[in-house]
């Protein structure tokens, strides 16, 4: 029994130590934003990496999500003769929930893993130590641009995903289910409020920060060669995905919880 409690205690202490280290890592990185030098080119390069190169996968995911949502809503709502609510359900679901969450999870898989692998490789090949010896703060040069790019780019990406997702619902609604195009579009924006889109974009900014933070953190502290880097990419994707779902609930509760 004592041994079991000791094991539970060790896991709990390990969790607390890891959380503390993560918070310190984020805090020290954000503190570098207060003083020059800044690296705007690095931020732009990361924005292109995160945003532009994620567009195909996010676009495809969004359009099929919108299409499936319209189809599923129809099969359910037709039982209650509530088919006219489909357009509203699609637009609210996509802007509030599915757009940010699906985009966040896809980008976590694509970009979070790549960040962890790149920074992890730099760690195990002494490139991060080399940065330090060249009087360059690795947190300022490597991590801060990625955090900034994640924070700025995800909302843009989610806005695009929202539009594509709603368009997917429109395609199914009009061409498969036979809705009148004008009526569908009217229903789409009739009940849509600014807060629906804004809450999704706030989620996106938080998710972008989480993805970049977890990718950089796990890469930065990776050790043990190729195996360590592989582990870092796994941890980066899993922890970012879990945190996205947790923060999705918290932000939803903050915006819409009564």
């Amino acid at each position: 029994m004592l041994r079991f409690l000791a094991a539970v205690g060790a896991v709990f202490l390990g969790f607390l130590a890891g959380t503390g280290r993560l918070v310190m890592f984020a805090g020290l990185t954000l503190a570098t934003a207060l003083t020059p030098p800044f690296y705007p080119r690095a931020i732009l390069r990361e924005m292109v990496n995160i945003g532009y190169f994620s567009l195909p996968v996010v676009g495809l995911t969004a359009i099929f999500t919108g299409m499936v949502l319209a189809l599923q809503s129809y099969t359910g709502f037709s039982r209650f003769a509530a088919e006219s609510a489909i357009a509203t359900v699609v637009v609210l679901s996509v802007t509030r929930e599915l757009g940010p969450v699906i985009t966040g999870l896809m980008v976590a898989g694509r970009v979070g893993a790549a960040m962890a692998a790149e920074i992890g490789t730099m760690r195990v090949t002494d490139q991060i130590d080399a940065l330090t010896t060249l009087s360059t703060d690795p947190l300022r040069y490597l991590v801060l641009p990625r955090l900034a790019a994640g924070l700025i780019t995800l909302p843009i990406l989610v806005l695009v995903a929202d539009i594509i997702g709603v368009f997917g619902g429109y395609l199914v609604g009009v061409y498969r289910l036979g809705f009148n195009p004008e009526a569908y579009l009217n229903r789409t924006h009739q009940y849509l409020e600014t807060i629906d889109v804004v809450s999704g974009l706030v989620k996106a900014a938080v998710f972008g920060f989480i993805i970049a933070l977890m990718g950089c953190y796990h890469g930065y502290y990776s050790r043990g060669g190729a195996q360590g880097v592989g582990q870092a990419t796994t941890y980066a994707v899993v922890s970012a995905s879990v945190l996205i779902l947790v923060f999705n609930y918290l932000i939803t509760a903050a915006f819409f919880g009564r």
Partner: protein
Amino acid sequence: MSDTGPAKISVRGLRKSFGRKRVLDGVDIDCASGESLVIIGGSGTGKSVLIKCILGLLHPEAGSIRVDGLETAGLRRGERERLLQRFGMLFQGSALFDSLSVWENVAFGLVHGRGVEGLRAREVALAKLGAVGLGPEVSLLRPAELSGGMQKRVALARAIAAEPEIVFFDEPTTGLDPIMADVINDLIVKCVREVGTTAVSITHDMVSARKIADRIAMLHQGRIVWHGPTAEIDRSGNPYVDQFINGRAEGPIQMEIRAA
């Protein structure tokens, strides 16, 4: 511990452990200004750890590290960055930045550490590449396109690009063929003799140590067990040094070998 003048670098009672393993156990060593000090010792004796502690890449548990009399342990981030502007470092695996071209690697410290303007930094980078025997045609290549010897030379050019007062060389000849190793040794000697740089090298390559060192120190089980001028190493009278420089399996240094 230096016999050659006032200490540029002075290390006293340095201790560093990883978990339960104590790697440095009270290291005392000095390096005089303009001197080339080589620290020898077997693999895993803490040579790289010692250098990383001096540079502030690792934090020792106890001891003092002074550079020109200034205590460096516990320096703040900004102070550490300013101090590191006086250092250059050649890493064992070169540690070149994959995403940058050769000249950008060499110019990195000038541009980001010292704020030198891009064109000027490029001129300096090309000059330093020339000094290590690499032509301008190499400057636009990526590190992955170079051989191991060329990567080492680029790393050397990067280490000396800003003409630092102190340069550390971590296993400068490891993994190189004898001819390329001698080329690197010559470049290090040239750097120290012509520019007057203070150099601290770590190696277990005795040919390299004899060529580049003014003074040699031997690290064993976390302590300096012998130090003296290079010319005296063959008559050190120290059994650890004798075993090491003659490469004998028998002696006071016991390698941990597990039976199959």
